[in-house]
């Protein structure tokens, strides 16, 4: 088959079947990039079912059945299928001045289950992600301690290890939408969220090694990056469930997640989970550093600001359908699915409304339901093909009920930037497209 034929192969049936929805040139580019095979992952709100290349479909024998595949020496560290190239983190260039002090978003609409793959964990850096040499990296523990200590990464790995699944969420998640619906896509409305199995040592064990003086009430955690990121953390949280970790999802931390050492402060805003951790200093008061005064504080409508609002309150979002995953099969049966999480503990219940919040049904929760971790919910639904509005509402084990956007605005105004955890609304159009809207 010539290159030309390869490229043309899938185009003709596609153009016949769906020419109104597809831009032909865009599809040609995509087909060429994928070597002429069917392109499943296309741009924007396209149907989930592409026509593909009939030559690879029954009753024909596909190309990959008639030649050898990759050998075991070809991919010593595996990568996703080339057909999944749209499943990537994305950033919003206008959001920040530079791409080094910036954030990107996990493609929540493309993910399954609850664990975020390491290459898709959202990134938030304030001075870029350094490649820290673990041989030279040190953690110093000092301040109000009996014995100032310095640890190598190997020292930290000697301590009793523990693995815990926890979500990590930037408190600015959803922050672009305080004043109105702005972003098209669950990746951008909720993608500052990830959920991993973290392995390390309880921070209390490491602090006990240094011996905490009674007057120590806070600790300052500091990174080794170009921002030398610092946050003050109350000693109670540090001694409770905070972890000093070196691994995520079974392998070493990724550079962009703080390799070789970072804090995991379960349920608390992402920024306090200091990456590339180089120093812990115990003190009697918080430091009031830039990232806990100028940033990561919540400005109220009266011009005063809240500080040290650490906990990520219960939140949820429907990831199927979503703007990236429209209803592609017309009226009929679908599974609504999404994610719920709470920084205060376990998700107790998730309710879903398919009529814009008038009536609610309780969704099934995928077990295990873990504390301060993402829980997936599911609910079968029969769509009648008409416009409607989908919402999800999380309840956590403290009895907290995820609020509406109106309730949040009444309490805080629209300029607090952080901690927007309101019930999210997707509008379903008669075509099955999904819009991000806000309702009252």
């Amino acid at each position, binding site marked *: 088959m010539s290159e030309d034929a390869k490229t043309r192969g899938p185009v003709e049936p596609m153009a016949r079947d769906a020419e109104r929805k597809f831009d032909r040139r*865009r599809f040609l580019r995509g087909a060429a990039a994928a070597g002429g095979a069917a392109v499943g992952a296309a*741009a*924007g709100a396209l149907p989930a079912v592409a026509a593909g290349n009939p030559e690879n479909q029954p009753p024909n024998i596909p190309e990959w059945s008639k030649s050898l595949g990759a050998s075991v020496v070809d991919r010593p560290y595996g990568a996703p299928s080339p057909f999944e190239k*749209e499943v*990537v983190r994305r950033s919003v260039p206008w959001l920040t*001045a530079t791409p080094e002090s910036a954030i990107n978003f996990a493609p929540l609409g493309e993910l399954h289950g609850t664990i975020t793959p390491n290459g898709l964990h959202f990134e938030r850096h*304030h*001075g870029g992600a350094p490649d820290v040499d673990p041989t030279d990296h*040190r953690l*110093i523990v000092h301040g109000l301690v009996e014995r*100032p200590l*310095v640890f190598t990464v190997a020292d930290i790995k*000697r*301590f009793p290890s523990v693995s815990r699944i926890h979500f990590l969420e930037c408190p600015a998640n959803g922050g672009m939408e305080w004043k*109105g*619906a702005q*972003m*098209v*896509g669950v990746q*951008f409305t909720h993608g500052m969220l990830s959920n991993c199995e973290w392995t390390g040592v309880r921070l209390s064990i490491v602090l006990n090694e240094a011996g905490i003086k009674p007057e120590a009430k806070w600790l*300052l955690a*500091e990174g080794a990056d170009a921002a*030398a990121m*610092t946050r003050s953390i109350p000693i109670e949280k540090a001694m409770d469930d905070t972890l000093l970790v070196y691994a995520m999802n079974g392998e070493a931390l990724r550079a962009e997640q703080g390799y070789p050492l970072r804090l995991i402060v379960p349920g608390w805003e992402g920024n306090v989970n200091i990456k590339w951790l*180089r*120093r812990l*200093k115990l*003190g009697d*008061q918080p*430091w*009031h*550093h*830039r990232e806990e005064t100028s940033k990561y*504080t919540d*400005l109220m409508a009266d*011009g*005063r*600001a*809240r*500080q040290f609002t650490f*906990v990520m309150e219960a939140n949820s979002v429907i990831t199927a359908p979503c703007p990236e995953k429209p209803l592609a099969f017309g009226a009929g049966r679908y599974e609504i699915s999404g994610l719920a999480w709470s920084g205060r503990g376990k998700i107790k219940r998730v309710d879903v409304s398919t009529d*814009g*919040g*008038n*009536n*609610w049904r309780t969704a099934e929760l995928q077990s295990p339901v873990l504390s301060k971790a993402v829980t997936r919910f599911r609910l079968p639904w029969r769509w009648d093909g008409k416009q409607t509005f989908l919402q999800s*509402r999380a309840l956590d084990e403290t009895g907290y*009920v995820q*609020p*509406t956007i109106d*309730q949040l605005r*009444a*309490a805080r105004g629209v*300029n607090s930037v952080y*901690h927007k955890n309101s019930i999210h609304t997707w509008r379903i159009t008669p075509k099955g497209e999904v*819009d991000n*809207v*806000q*309702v*009252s």
Partner: protein
Amino acid sequence: MFRCLRRASALALALAALLSAGTVDAQTKARFGYGRAATPAEIAGWDIDVDALGRGLPPGKGSVKDGEELYMTHCAGCHGEFGEGAGRYPEVAGGRGTLASEDPRKTVGSYWPYAPPLFDYIRRAMPFPSPQSLSDDEIYAITAYVLSLNDILKDDDVLDATALAKIVMPNAKGFVPGGDPRPDARNEACMKNCRSEPLRVTSDLAQRLGVTPKRTGD
């Protein structure tokens, strides 16, 4: 065989010594003894933090006048000659009186509650492409100049540890005391006929705004 036994008994003695030492300090028992003592020199090299009270400020000083030239060299490219900010870079001056408005401007002068952490932040993270490259005197001078841009210092002022710790920032009382007041928004988990009024779409411009980045295939 005997050699092995001798080794084992030596090990037992060493263990016993460790355990008896542990009884001196109750905490010692729980300790693993990993890591080693950090030397004063090691700590001094990394101990760069300054807190809200100015604890941690180093010796040295800098003037507003010296700071102006340094600011123009190292800072103005991003933060603007008058602290107004260039492009998406943060503005560092102005904004007083805007915090309760529809368009609050959070700057050093309008928002920061304490002055010493400004020195801390410049020392640890600025200039953005080359942090931890300025001398303490230079950082004092730039700190002084940024405070002068906010009318907190006068043109002929000189800043050192004592002077910086004494500054009361305009927004010193702008932060709500008493910790996190949440949960502050209360919802009820109504299940049936929850709407007293028909649904009203309050915002649906996302598609038309066109501010969402395109996917890589576009």
